[in-house]
């Protein structure tokens, strides 16, 4: 599953608080009592994670639906 979400961060974004450029950060994502680690673009300082629309409406939606049917 870890691979499913991995993707390079969208171009040009940096953290609104820390100003740092986003890097792949390993985060725990959770839904319907299932959780797993994935790499997502995030702020190396504060850990804010960016989930872009492509991910939210693509792979992530697919997994959400799957977990809901479990």
């Amino acid at each position: 599953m870890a691979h499913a979400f991995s993707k390079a961060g969208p171009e040009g974004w940096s953290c609104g608080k820390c100003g740092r450029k986003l890097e792949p950060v390993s985060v725990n994502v959770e839904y319907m009592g299932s959780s797993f680690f994935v790499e997502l673009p995030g702020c190396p300082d504060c850990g804010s994670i960016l989930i872009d629309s492509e991910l939210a409406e693509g792979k992530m939606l697919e997994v959400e639906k799957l977990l809901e049917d479990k």
Partner: protein
Amino acid sequence: MEQSVLEQFENLCTQEALPACQSHCPLQVDGRALASLTAEGKIDEARKNLERNMPLAAISGRVCEGPCREHCLRTALDSGVNIPLLELCIVQEGRPVKPFPLPGTNKTIAVVGSGLSGLVAAYGLAMKGHKPVILTMGRPGGKLWDLSRRLMPAEVIEDGLQTLKNIKVEFLDVKTFDRADLDELTRERGGVFLAPDDPLFDFSWLPPESLVADRVTRSSNLNEKIFLGPDRHEKTFLEAVSAGKKAALSLDRLFQGVNPATAREKEMTGPTRLRVDLGGREPIKEMEPKEPTAPDKDEAKAEAARCLRCACLACLPPCPLLRGRKGYPKKYAREFYNNIITAFGIRHSNRHINSCTECGLCAQLCPNGANLGQFVAKAKIEMVKTSHMPVSAHEFALEDQVFSNSDEAAFIRLQPGSTTSAALFFPGCQLSGASPEGVLDLYRHLMAHLPGGVGLWAGCCGAPGRWSGRRRLTDKTVATMAEVWKKSGSPTVILACPSCARFFEAELPDIPILGLWPVLEKLALPERAVPLAEPLVVHDPCAARLDMESQTSLRRLMEKLGQALLEPPMSGRKTLCCGYGGLVSEAVPEMGRQFVQERLSGCQEPILAWCSVCRDRFRAEGRGALHPIDLLFPQAPPQAVMTEEPPGISAKREGRRFFKIKALTDIFGEAVEETKTMGLNVDVPGSVLRDMESRRILMTDVMAVLENAAKNGPSFINQETGRRLANLRPRQVTYWVEYDERQDGSILVHRAWCHRMETPGAPGERKESPASEEGFARTGGRV
């Protein structure tokens, strides 16, 4: 869910009942399958199929007299399909199936007589592994030898006898057979079968009534071990085959210690429950083969093509769910039931269950009134109860219901200036959200014309909760409504929305209700009412398919107005659903579109829909559509309104808020406090809004994200484009908004999206209150 619920439904859908040919065949030969396979040229497969039900098919298939023919449904058109002709071809041309008997037992059976019934009984017993011995007087075969050699060549009989020997049937030549012989056999053998269809055996020493067998088991009154072949009234070869087959099964059961009489209903011939629509079928002349005893494959094919492939398809064609997959209601109900009781793995049918609009059309088309929608409603309740309803499926509609019943939108007032009301007008959340001004004018009209005072009751009846299987939420809604109604003096409630009407009928049976159209029909036409110059196709909402009174009143009212109407192909009792029923358009939007398309494909003209959801769904597909109030209480020329983009989810919420404020201030003369906002100046282009709507993101969701960002700063900034990105998880959904801050401080929204997964570690992703037991957490009443 109790299994009996499934069984009850299964009993209603008779799609799996046997075709008439099979139900009238004493061997249960499947004429429909034989005809299908033969027509496709699959003679070997047809033979396999035939041998499953017909023992010693090489012989039996040549002598079957075809008692099915007079019951075949084709008799209503021309003449019954000639199944015996097919059988003849199949046993002559099809590859024989090699018999594989079960492992041997030590049961020996005496078969007395070697006519066809004896041969068949011995065959059946040997196949079960038992040891039959056929007593014969001279050459075995009985009357088979009397048939024409053309139809029954000697080698076919010889081959049949050889087949029996191959499966270890013994033959014993005897000279005489009498009472003492019978007694001895009965004592020594596991069982006895008397086959009086062998003319060489004389059983006249037995009383005639002892030779009459039980119709199903072929048992006799002589001894529980003695079974009988055909009696003197059973003269056909097929009756002989049937008697031998049944007796072999009974004896096998006897050996297994099972009562031969139990569960034999399937072997009884009789009428079938299968209903077939013969509409549009043309007569076709029966095939007459050149050589009647040896029809060739092409001749058999031609005759097979006459078979109607009897099946019940009555309910399938107009329903996208039923016709979409290879099945029929009985099969789907079983599938849905298994989906519910499954303990592990993915529940693949969730989507299909949530694709039924509960519109009840199937029940109107089914000869037995089977209503898959009712079954689905029960299935959904069970899914919610066991926490297996996908949480996102109906979430938005449920939140909408809660919003509509919150202080922001709900209220109830008696007619201004009166202390009692004879009636309460309940416009419903959808109509008052979509057409608030029109509804207010309608209310003014009712106040002006109805005696005794009319109150106004704004809110959502609770249909979404009911459609989504949330029993607890529904019970709570119902209890609140009953209380509110009582406090208002228990008046009659006038309902504008057909779905509300069904909800009140089912959940609040004590509340007397009236449909809006029967009420309006009796009043003077509103002053500003205008007809449209062109005729409108009248669409009856599916919730009102049985509400004949409203259907008629609406039509009469339109006639009074001078509005020309057209009837669509499916209307009234058989009307089609727009796809919102059962919240299908919420849970499975693609399916919702198939339903609306099904309705639209039947007509080209603009539509008059007396449910505002239907109206707006038609408009969203680009079809002109109006609600009767658009003509009766127009706010703009109907011609122009008809093709406008329909109000979306944000506009409808706004409409409900507006409806309350407007009603309270303009009609009831109350002061209403303005809700405070941060006063952000936000610009959302139409295309962005449409995108948001399809994701069920409200303007208020976007505003919450932006207000949070205004206080705490955006989460991300794009160094190249200067755009900002903010996110917020106010409940089980995280919302994202990408925007620009303009020089003048206003905000231009570029995109908004959302997801349900959370990243609990990340800042800004605060964990919200857990989902309620009913599976959805957020409540209305937020800005």
